[in-house]
């Protein structure tokens, strides 16, 4: 908690003031007028102007479509423990039951165990549309296990989309196999295109049977990553680029990375905050390297949002996560439990669920369009952020005290735009307020004007009010974006009638740790 307090002291740890950072980033060249006209992912809600064949690929993929992540689940199987590079934000040595850092999993699987797990989950969780292999090492440093798993799964469950996430070092060597297996989504983690910067992030790589270090290592890695990206886009395989935002090291440079990957055809760019709690024992964590604040992250994401989609809904989930983004049901599907399960693959039930989602999704889009129209007559320069408690389905359907995370929307007369989520420690535990109290939640939501919930107790409501955040229950179980716009209209009305005063909110803290249910 002390760490969070430090992070909130914006500018106190040697970083540039927010306004200055914004100015620097804005002049970076790929800034834009926001994502209003864009489609498909990151910020926009639906098909928009995406070509039909690409829309087909992304519409049910929770990582590639912001809209889909409300309805569809992904699972990762941990079949790839080996890695071929060392990153300063990763510590491979550390693993325990409460581990909450990306890249680490408690249970490793053989391809056969993994395939059985996938079928078991798919037959019980109809939302599960995507299988990803993301580690805990690098999938392409374990090519035999990775591709064997894909083969087994696509034979048994051909409707499941396959994707993999890689550091890119050996990617150019595997393009044919990736294409042959119909892996249609690949994520490459690209943190730099300048080897001088790369040398501060990667101590070494293992390539062509030897170790390379420093600038030489970063140069090889960068060339291989960009080559792999070009080769994939040439084959029509959708590529998402992940970048870890490391303040003072690559934060401003990521604008250049964004331009470089956009020029090579990347479909989506996901800039994630560095996770660097000292107890994780990573090189960055031990050196006291801080992660970005919520507003620093947003400023950078906004600056990169040109013609390219930015992903804002990443949960930085573990390499063995199961469920909707923001949900982890991996405990229900441990090796031992899967071994005992009678597994039958029910394609019809899965297709019935898809049809239900299609209908719900159309209803959400229609409602949003109608609500947006009512903003036409409003003229105001005010923009606010609103937090929402949801457990999926695109509705405000979570109790404040039961929320593991809040979704954050930015709303102005231009409409409502999803800009990210904030993980929090559960406020309510067994009917009582948690030991950590409400303080961390106030910090996580500090840049928001209101929080829309299904229900909230009087105590937390008062605490939020004291911090200048209005807790609102009147939109319970309604569609999220429609409600956010409706709240905003009411807010403007109240400001107009001097019932309330518009206050510009401050910055917020990003909770450390990958998403786990614990």
């Amino acid at each position, binding site marked *: 908690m002390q760490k969070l307090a430090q992070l909130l002291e914006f500018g106190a740890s040697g970083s540039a003031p927010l306004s200055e950072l914004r100015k620097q980033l804005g002049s970076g060249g790929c800034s834009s007028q926001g994502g209003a006209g864009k489609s498909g992912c990151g910020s926009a809600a639906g098909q928009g102007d995406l070509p039909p064949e690409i829309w087909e690929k992304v519409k049910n993929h929770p990582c590639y479509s912001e809209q889909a992540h409300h309805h569809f689940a992904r699972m990762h199987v941990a079949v790839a*423990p*080996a890695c071929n590079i060392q990153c300063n934000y990763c510590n*491979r*040595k550390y693993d325990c039951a409460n581990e909450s850092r990306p890249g680490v999993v408690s249970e490793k699987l053989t391809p056969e165990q993994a395939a059985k797990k996938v079928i078991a989950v798919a037959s019980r969780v109809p939302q599960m549309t995507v299988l990803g292999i993301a580690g805990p*090492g690098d999938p392409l440093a374990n090519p035999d296990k990775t591709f064997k798993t894909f083969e087994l799964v696509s034979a048994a469950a051909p409707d499941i989309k396959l994707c993999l996430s890689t550091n890119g070092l050996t990617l150019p060597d595997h393009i044919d196999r990736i294409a042959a297996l119909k892996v249609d989504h690949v994520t490459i983690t690209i943190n730099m295109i300048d080897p001088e910067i790369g040398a501060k992030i990667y101590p070494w790589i293992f390539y062509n*049977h030897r*170790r390379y270090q420093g600038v030489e290592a970063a140069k090889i890695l960068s060339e291989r990553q960009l080559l792999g990206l070009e080769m994939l886009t040439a084959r029509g395989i959708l590529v998402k680029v992940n970048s870890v935002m490391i303040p003072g090291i690559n934060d401003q440079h990521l604008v250049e990375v964004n331009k470089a990957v956009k020029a090579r055809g990347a479909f989506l760019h996901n800039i994630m905050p560095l996770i660097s709690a000292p107890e994780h024992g990573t090189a960055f964590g031990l050196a006291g390297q801080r992660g970005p604040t919520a507003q620093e992250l947003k400023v950078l994401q906004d600056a990169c949002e040109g013609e390219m989609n930015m992903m804002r809904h990443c949960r930085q989930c573990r390499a063995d996560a199961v469920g909707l983004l923001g949900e982890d049901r991996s405990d229900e599907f441990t090796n031992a439990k899967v071994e005992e399960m009678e597994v039958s693959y029910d394609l019809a039930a899965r297709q019935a669920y898809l049809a239900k989602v299609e209908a719900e999704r159309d209803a959400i889009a229609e409602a949003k369009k109608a609500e947006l129209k009512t903003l036409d007559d409003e003229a105001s320069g005010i923009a606010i952020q609103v937090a929402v408690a949801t457990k999926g389905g695109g509705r405000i359907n979570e109790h404040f005290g039961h929320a593991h995370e809040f979704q954050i929307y930015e709303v102005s007369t231009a409409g409502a735009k999803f800009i990210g989520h904030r993980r929090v420690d559960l406020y309510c535990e067994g009917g009582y307020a948690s030991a950590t109290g409400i303080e961390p939640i106030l910090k996580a939501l500090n840049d928001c004007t209101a929080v829309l919930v299904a229900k909230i107790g009087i105590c937390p409501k008062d605490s939020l009010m004291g911090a200048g955040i209005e807790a609102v229950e009147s939109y319970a179980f309604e569609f999220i974006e429609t409600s956010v716009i409706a709240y905003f209209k009411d807010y403007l009305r109240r400001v107009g009638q001097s019932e309330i005063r518009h206050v510009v909110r401050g910055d917020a803290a990003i909770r450390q740790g990958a998403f786990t249910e614990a």
Partner: protein
Amino acid sequence: MAYRIVASQCTSCSACSIECPNAAIFEKGGSFAIDASKCTECIGHYDVPQCVAVCPVDHTCIIDSAVPRYQAPA
């Protein structure tokens, strides 16, 4: 004659066993181990021992002082 793996430091990531040109590395009780009779210290294969170069934890793949150093066939 061989390298060995310090089991207490091994993360069991299997990277060494993938790279070993002699298939000398196997899983044993939650970590990995090297079959000293198969290890050639990568002499004749590569400039550096592959397990040492790829291991994410430094000083985990080390020379096994209990056995004589590997001698390449003349």
